[in-house]
């Protein structure tokens, strides 16, 4: 099938086909990321750098 696919396609159409294929996948990925997001799914993970603990003072550390 792929032989027919390529044989029946104009040479200049190949990069256009590849471009549309890429754009299609890109749009699908972008829609998946930005539209179908479930709120709260990753909020805790996203905040991890901000919740890695507050440094204790020397007085607090010393027994």
């Amino acid at each position, binding site marked *: *099938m*792929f*032989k*027919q*696919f390529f044989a029946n396609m104009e040479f200049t159409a190949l990069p256009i086909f*590849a471009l549309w294929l*890429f754009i299609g996948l*890109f749009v699908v*990925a972008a829609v998946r*990321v*930005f539209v179908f*997001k*479930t709120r709260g*799914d*990753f*909020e*805790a*993970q*996203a*905040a*991890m*750098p*901000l919740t*890695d*603990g*507050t*440094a*204790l003072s020397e007085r*607090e*550390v010393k027994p």
Partner: protein
Amino acid sequence: MTTRIERVSYDDAIVRKFMFASILFGAVGLLVGLVIACQLAWPALNFGIPYTTFSRLRPLHTNAVIFAFVGNMMFAGVYYSTQRLLKVRMAHDGLSALHFWGWQLIIVAAAITLPLGITTSKEYAELEWPIDIAIAVIWVVFAINFFWTLAKRNEKHLYVAIWFYIATIVTVAVLHIVNSFALPLSPLKSYSAFAGVQDALVQWWYGHNAVAFFLTTPILGIMYYFLPKAAERPVYSYRLSIVHFWALVFMYIWAGPHHLLYTALPDWAQSIGMLFSLMLWAPSWGGMLNGLLTLRGAWNKVREEPVLKFFVAGVTFYGMATFEGPLLSIKSVSALGHYTDWIIGHVHGGALGWNGLMAAGLFYWLAPRLWDRPLHSKKAADAHFWLATIGIVLYMVSMWISGVNQGLMWRAQNPDGTLVYPSFVETLIAIRPMYIVRAIGGTLYLTGFVVMIWNLLKTAVGAKPINTTVDVTVTEDTAEEKAIGVGDVIAGRPLWFSVAAIAITCLFFYVDSTIAAVGLAIAVLVVGEVAYLLNKRMRAAGGASWFGIIERRPMAFTVLTLVAILIGGVAEILPIVLVKQAVPATGSAQKPYTALEQQGRDVYTREGCYVCHSQMIRPMVAEYLRYGEASRAEEFIYDHPFQWGSKRTGPDLHRIGGKYPSLWHYTHLMDPRSTSPGSNMPSYGWLQEGTIDAKLAPKKLALMQKLGVPYTNADIDGAEDSQRKQAATIVADLAKNNVTVAWNSEMVALIAYLQRLGRDQGIALTDDAPKTAAVTGGEN
């Protein structure tokens, strides 16, 4: 679910050590870079000394910046953020120390060996085999310490930064080990196990992915941790970071062949390299936008906070470099830009802009926290920022102009089909002003770096270094969570749906009817839909997503990452290495180098001639007119290692053999400007005094025989005598012009090699040498 409070004391001393080393070696790397930039504008600065010659210092510069400056900076960022993200101290202080001191020892070894000419000649992998082994050992130490820490962690979730660190550790190990396959001749000399096309592909698979997985992925991890910290905002889209990570690690590994466009590499591999490079635009910019959009609502802080200034500019330069890289990978653009300074401008946009500015942002953020004292001067940090930014702009713009200018001059043709600029030196003289502007840009950048050193020293000196102690909340796994095992990862529906979709897509290539093809397309859609519906039902029932399962399992995550990076590497490299047809042989026309030529080749690699001269004529009219017939894959089958080069500061040398008499080469090597006025090549006068080790010739040929080069035992036994005989013809030829050199001088060996280049057969070097160029005023 149960929780407990645990007190953790982080190892910040190791962070301070790596930070100090990065700054120290960064200054050295930048200084050497400035010196070699000046050498290109004013060749007298080579001083006629082997150890300070451009071709030996350039690898020192690249290694110092990549592995010493960025490497140490990366380790500082990794050690700091990993402990905090995993809420645990590094697993073993001894391993951390071993990692630090081992890495510094490797850097010192590089700093000693590279100026001495001890090199494999493979770009960014020049270090010889004992150092390569040391790198592998120290990298394993780092990996053990890192994965051990993962095993001991108090935080179940692995934040996105940790994924990037995992990808870095795994991939760099694979790249380094494969690209370093070599047979040792002596403790300080080895030959690549691969030859010609295979060696080129493996090298640029490594070279490109050294940029990807040493200069990019760990810094992205650092970006994902430190940018939200500095902005006091969570990352813009965590979901985007997931797509960013997997798309980047999967695609990056395929892009290596874009360094070999229009070379003798099979066309399919070149096209794949170009295609994946273009696709890389998407994840790269996804990451960049994720970084910049993290600052939404906090852009006012950028005006006040130097750390954010550096991070924002660094991420922006990342965006610029990752736009330019795919652009340069388009074959028609590469035809113009490859071998020119455009590439140099591109890589420095990445190195100075992305890596350098991110490093500065990191250090300005770390110093006050590691020494518990505010940054000494924000004004000085601002001054550093502007000096660095203006320096980078001057550097990049001058190199863009230089590269495009030279690329156009190389290809310019008169109406009658001849070259407008037949002399290579003409094109070099035209870009000299740009070399001076580049040196000015580099000076500004280095000045800014010195300001940073002063500022950080003023912050740290007299302050008390601290090791942060925190109380962290540790959440214990529930019984259900504990029950999730490797089986759940393997049995994950997304995994099987993906495999099914890929399998159905592959079937498309084997069916030959339209109905069947449409049926397969529908099958893919059905599989996707079913996957979506099942996932929706499972999530509604409160089940964990498959990704939610693997992102808590470092081993599963590491294995999947390894699979993602291996697919591209295996798909590209195995066919080229294993399939004989990849390199068509032309039978008896291919003769291995003679013993003397091999000795000369070793001098060529030692001096780093490949740094400025390519040995790869591309199939283009202008290249044919300037250099001769296009290079073919079969011409390099005995080249261990390949010497195709990546930059033409001087002309291509693949068909230099026989173009000039030996006297021209002698004169040119002794004083390049006497034969080529305007050339910026250093003189290599020491080659006349230096001697080859004639007794090593049989050993070298025997080693090559082991690598598959068809030397007979008679060739090996007679190697010593044969080199003397061949050298005698060159010595006699030079003597006719009153030049006296010893038969075993490095000069004679190098001339023998140069005269052989581009010829299928070994040549007699006396009477039949074409007199196509005068000794002085050579054309190229």
